[in-house]
């Protein structure tokens, strides 16, 4: 790899990192797993003046469930950590479904969840998963920290709402209030491929009724898409075939796919509908006693 000339720093503390970030402002880039940034450097699509390698900040390498039931994911939590985590199955089903489908095993060893959110690739899997789960991102800089909803954090294709000098330190998923069900269905051409279509579904139920619903779409628009109308169509409903069909249709309507070598727009829209239907039809709700 022959990137443009750049400075490399490996801070030993967050404060040190903030100082460098503040000094360089927009010309600084955080290096996390490097699985998106390094290819961009190689292709010279990115030419930062300085790379701030946060891999030494081992305090950020965590994910944990809080006593209130929320899940916190530090900036150095790798995809593989979630793939292998015992915390996820059952309690965070959408997360558990997505983790083994992100990229390939080699990329999962290095890539981070927070890095993926920061990268804001419309084909990135984590953004839609966290969007469907109503997730948040904690960002920090020399002047303090703030919490941003994922919906407001991932603002555009390859654009996040970090201010110059800020680092994302944590992502989080709020506690489920009902019984959680979730899926991540991904159509890929090959293992390690970005999604042709990805659909994240996260619902919570109370009895046989849906109390919360999150549906977000990967790869079918210029941004990660939250299918708000489809979500609303589920609230207060039971998982009956007509309800499912309506939500699936609304989700497909929310997609804004483009025809390309991965498939036609029409096809991608059809797959969104199929996946939403398949996901919602797969839940066997625990019947309240």
């Amino acid at each position, binding site marked *: 790899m*022959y990137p443009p000339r750049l400075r490399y720093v490996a801070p030993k503390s967050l404060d040190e990192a903030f100082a460098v970030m503040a000094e360089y402002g927009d010309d600084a880039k955080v290096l996390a797993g490097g699985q998106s940034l390094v290819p961009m450097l190689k*292709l010279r699509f990115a030419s930062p003046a300085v790379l701030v390698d946060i891999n030494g900040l081992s305090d950020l390498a965590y994910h944990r469930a809080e006593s209130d039931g929320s899940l916190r994911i530090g900036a150095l939590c790798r995809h593989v950590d979630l793939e292998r985590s015992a915390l996820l199955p059952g309690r965070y089903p959408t997360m558990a479904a997505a983790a083994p489908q992100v990229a390939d095993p080699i990329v999962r060893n290095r890539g981070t969840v927070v890095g993926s959110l920061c990268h804001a690739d419309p084909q990135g899997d984590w953004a839609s998963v966290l969007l469907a789960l109503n997730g948040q991102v904690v960002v920090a800089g020399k002047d303090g920290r703030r919490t941003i909803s994922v919906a407001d954090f991932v603002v555009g294709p390859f654009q996040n709402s970090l201010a110059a000098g800020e680092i994302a330190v944590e992502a989080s998923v709020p506690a489920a209030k009902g019984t959680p069900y979730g899926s991540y269905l991904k159509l890929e*051409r*090959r*293992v390690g491929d*970005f999604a*042709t279509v990805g659909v994240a579904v996260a619902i919570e139920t109370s009895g046989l009724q849906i109390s919360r619903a999150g549906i977000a779409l990967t790869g079918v628009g210029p941004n990660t898409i939250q299918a708000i109308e489809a979500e609303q169509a589920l609230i207060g409903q039971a998982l009956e075939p007509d309800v499912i069909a309506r939500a699936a249709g609304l989700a497909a309507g929310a997609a804004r796919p483009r025809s390309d*070598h991965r498939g*036609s727009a029409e096809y991608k829209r059809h797959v969104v509908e199929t996946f939403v239907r398949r996901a919602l039809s797969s839940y066997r709700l625990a019947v309240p006693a």
Partner: protein
Amino acid sequence: MSQALDEVKIGGLGSSRQRVEDARFIRGRGNYIDDLKLPGMLHMEILRSPLAHARIISIDTSAAWAIPGVRLVLTGEMAAQRNLAWMPTLSYDTQAVLATDKVRFQGQEVACVVADDPYIAKDACEAIVVEYEPLPVIVNPIQSLAPDAPLIRDDKEGQTDNVCYRWEVGDKQGTDRAFAQADHISRLKLHYPRSHPSPIECCGSVADYNAATGKLTVYMTTQAPHIIRAAVALVAELPEHMIRIVSPDLGGGFGNKVPVYPGYVCSILGSILTGKPVKWIEDNFGNLISTGFGRDMYLDSELALRKDGKILAVRFHADTDQGAFFSDAQPSKFKIGLVHSAFACYDIPVGHITARGAYTNKAPGGVAYRCSFRVTEAMFFQERMIQAAAADLGMDQAQFRRINLRRADDFPARTPFGFLVDSGQYHKCLQLGLDAIGYEDFKREQAQARSRGRRLGIGISTMTEPLGAGNSREYDILGIKMFDSAELRVHPTGKAILRTGAKTQGQGHETTWAQIVSHELGIPADDVIVEEGDTDTAPFGMGTYASRSTPVAGAAVSMVARKVRAKARKLAAHLLEVSEEDIEWELGRFYVRGAARRGVTIQECAMAAYTNMPDGMEPGLENNAYYDPPNLTWPFACYIATVEVDPETGVWDVLRVVAVDDCGVRINPMIVEGQIMGGLAEAYAMANMQFMTYDADGNMIGANYIDYLLPTAWETPGFELHEVVTPCPHHPIGAKGVGECAAVGGPAAFVNAVMNALEDTGVRNIDMPVLPDRVWQAIQTGRDVSGVPPVRQD
């Protein structure tokens, strides 16, 4: 008396001996082009065109020259001063080394920089300012051959259209007559998409011109070092004995490393101009966007059929998309490779083929990628056509093949296009495959599944292909006949070094050639070292591609070992004090006829060759052999795949794959099986996911490994391998080529399986790769799906 040697134990024929080259490869101790560092070496980087077709208005290199550490900025204009802006190709065309007048494909070489390190070279390339005037872009032959298409090769005197060649073979009148008598005519049109050999290691070279001695040494990634030496002698006007081409360990080739690329030429020119060694290492992007690809053929064919299923005649037309230059490395006599080997396994009385090449604004190439000169398209097309014809007649596809496959007692025979097929047990292979997959059971299962809305499919591909170019009557490249060679030197202690004119790039020659020597001489394979790739030491040969190494160079190994054995026999007679006529041979040992205890080993003979030769005998035990094969070798294969198609998403999964290969005598069965599995994996990739396509502006989609998909162990199905052995009648040890069989014959098995699953929809063809969205579209519309690159609609 000594115990007779166990041939398998000493690593002879039939031994699945571990690959000796792996010891260094898996330990990271190989020596690839990028491992090479010469004192004072400089680094070269190429600036490529962002546009597919544009006139060059100006090139400003001043900012690049101004960067410290830049030693040379080379443009087409400067190359032209040395008569090197253009070079001849191996298909008697010309190709731009560095563009002077216009760029003709995206990724074309426009300028290059030689600098102290690769970072500087890259920075300097970015500092070169090129002003282009965009021209209309042509991305497929339909567009290219249209009457008012813009002229791509306006550099060529007398060229008034975009036709790059025309070719024809067969009997037109006879074919027309047969069609007139047919009960039914089946027709199929398809496009075999462009694919890329994509070796892990890209191309590269280190050119080292020594002004004091006048000698040019080029270390380079080439599958054919001697052809390159001849080409460099002609292009660079250097005397051939002052050129040394060294091909080090190669990280794969698959045909990608046969042609001469501009990068090689520029590194040579760079070294001559700077007086320093110059290294050029291509990156993945450069490799995918500019170097030799495979296929990109448009086929339209008809079969004349009798009601009972007998094929009466075949005719087809092929258009090839050659890209901007006709740069294929292929036998000179044939403009579209060996595409006329199509239908060679079927007993068809008559046929006619026409073919045409089209220039387009795409990277040049066509024949590369694990293929004996376009037989991949020929066999794919043949087997797709066979399936379509069987379906048209409402006949079982296996039965249709049985009716038409040549019978084992029907050899030798001429195909309608002039090939001589010499042996085979086609029916036996087919039956073995059908039994292995459980054909009748599967058909029942398929019918049951269909009644429950599930779509299962089974696809068969049977084919024989011509491997091992060539024989000198018909096959040459630039006039040089396609023989090959081996040189064997046995040292006093009975150890030996073998060199050949081939060049291994993953096939395992270092292992296999030693086994042939072992078979012929009884020397343990471990005692034979194999060296290839250095034109100063290796005998002249045509290199490795088209599955030709074992058929040609491997035969030369046998022949040279036999020459050595003949001399050893004289030495044995001398040592045993009997006349040569009284000497018998068993593996590794000569003995006196009727007195088996009195004998000498081959090692004892070797020692005598240096220490105790008879009066008048030349010392030493070595020889060489140039082998000109009497015919091609004709391996046969039957591949059968079963699939399930998800009609809702168009996704198809492979259930099972059965492969029956008859490649004659297997020298190292493990290596043969590895070649077959590798070929099947590639076949699956081509059928399922892999293609390089272009948008209407000529931008290549897939000049990276995110979009150009190589299959991984995860999705590649498992393969069940079987064998039949029909020894090649003319090869010294009965071996045939095999390296490409599965990649050639495999794709049709997968595609036929998917088409079989869709048979009731009326869809006859989905172009490869059979992507889920294409399957879905076919099911939705009931119409064929074309994969032809789209053209601009404005």
